[in-house]
Every structure is written in C-alpha cells, then in structure tokens.
C-alpha cells in the first residue's frame, strides 16, 4: 500500500521491505553514475587486496536505496534528511533487505521519522539510520 498523505501514516507502520539490487553489474552502473568508479567498489579481487571482504556497495548507494524505499512507499514524500551509520560492510553480490518503520509523526510540521535498517541474510544489521520525511496533508 502506498502512502499519499500524512493521514495515511500510522505510528509504527512498517514500510514494505525492499531488497536492493547489489549485483556487481548494478553497483558498477551506480559507481560510474556517481563518479565513484574505484576498484574497492567494482572488483572483488582488488577489494580483497585492500583487506576488504570483497567489493563493497558504496555507502552512498546504501543511502540511495533507503531513499528509493521511502519513495516507493510514499511517492509524494519530500526527504528532509537521511542519516546513516555504517556498522559493517555491505558486500557486492550478497543479499540484503531493507526495512523501515515509522517512529514519529509530527502533525504540526507534516513530517514523519523513519527508522531504517539494512540487514544481511543472517539478519545482522549492516547499516542503520533515520530519515525525516515531509508528506502532504490531506
């Protein structure tokens, strides 16, 4: 179900879980578009040579995934702020899922706050953060 206005949102509402495309093909596409075309993001061998577990999904791409998830849930949403903490590497070609839940509704300001987590297949949090989003009033 998508959200059109602030009235459509309930405290504690869960956003539809988003499974981002973390394939090497897609990450390379992103890296070129964002100007971040560096081996640690686009080449598993090169990343391991740097001591990393494999090529990394750039932090800004994880941030982009979070924004996309919010827009899919609430197309008219205006993102005021997205703040992310990177707890552990997000590795290219591994599966992740992104969850969001509404943790505050500010009727006066027309904003909601959302907790966001990126977890791996084992359910471990790799990235967490919050977003503040303005929605139209009914």
């Amino acid at each position, binding site marked *: 179900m998508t959200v059109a206005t602030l009235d459509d949102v309930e405290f504690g509402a869960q956003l539809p879980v988003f499974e981002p495309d973390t394939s090497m093909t897609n990450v390379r596409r*992103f890296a070129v*578009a964002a100007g971040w075309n560096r081996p640690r993001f686009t080449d598993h061998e090169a990343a391991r040579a740097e001591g990393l577990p494999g090529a990394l999904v750039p932090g*800004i791409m994880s941030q982009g995934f979070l*924004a*996309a998830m919010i*827009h899919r849930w609430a197309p008219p949403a205006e993102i005021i702020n997205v703040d992310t903490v*990177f707890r552990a590497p997000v590795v290219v070609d591994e599966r992740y899922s992104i969850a969001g839940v509404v943790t505050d509704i500010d009727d006066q300001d027309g904003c909601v706050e959302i907790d966001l987590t990126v977890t791996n297949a084992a359910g471990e949090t790799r990235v967490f953060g919050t977003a503040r989003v303005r929605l139209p009033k009914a």
Partner: protein
Amino acid sequence: MSLDIDDLKERFLNQEFDAQTYSVSTESIVDYARACGEVAPRYTDPEDPDFQAPPTFASSFQAGRRLPDDFPPLPGLGMDAGKAVSPKRPIRPGVELTGRSHVHDIYTKSGRSGRMVFIVIRMELYDPAGSQLATADTSVVIRERPAS
C-alpha cells in the same frame, strides 16, 4: 603513529579547506536513480517536468581534497562510517554547482579492531545564485594500526 585529536580540532575544525564545482548530466541522474531502485518519473524520466537528481545524490560529490592540505597523514585505512544528507532544493542536470567543505567534527572511540578516529567532513552545496541546495556529511573512520 596516532593522531593528536585535540591539536587537530584546534587547527582544523570549521575552516573551509576546499571548494569545487560540479555539474550533473541527465544520463548520470537516470543511471544513479535506476541503480538505487527509484521508480518515480521525476528521477528516472528526463522528459518529466520536475526531472531532478534523487535527494541523496548530494552525498556523491567528492571534494577536491579529502582533508586539508596540512592534515597529518592518516595512520590507517579510511572507511566510510556514515553519511547524512539534508536536501533543500532540487539538483537539476547541467546546472553548475559549488561544493564547499570543512572539517565538522573529529572524535575517537574504541572498536572491534582498535582505536578508531572519526572525521566528519561537511560539504555545503550551492547553485550559481548562491542558494544552498544541500548539506552532505561524510564520516570517515580510520582504524589505527597498532605500532609494530
């Protein structure tokens, strides 16, 4: 070799150390948006009257220098520890943007692999008229390697 945090804060906090100009192409906006999973036409369709970069795009601009020129060499590998972005106005393709960067914060904590030093760089993004389009914070963490 470890960094003297108090000295660094005194010398570098809140002083602009870089200014760069950027311009974003239509193609890169579309590729960025699609790669992130955006489906809204305003991010994926150049014909949309409100076509603009996704709001987190501001985080992707990189300063000409990662740190001030006279910042001491980092004692370990620098990794992204977090990003925060506050978009204020749309970023449109072809518009010349100016990004001004300063060291916003420096602090330490202990982590799984030893002492970690966090450096927060803030970039403020402006359009040619001087309107602020976004603020983007990057937290870089350096895991200090133990002295050999």
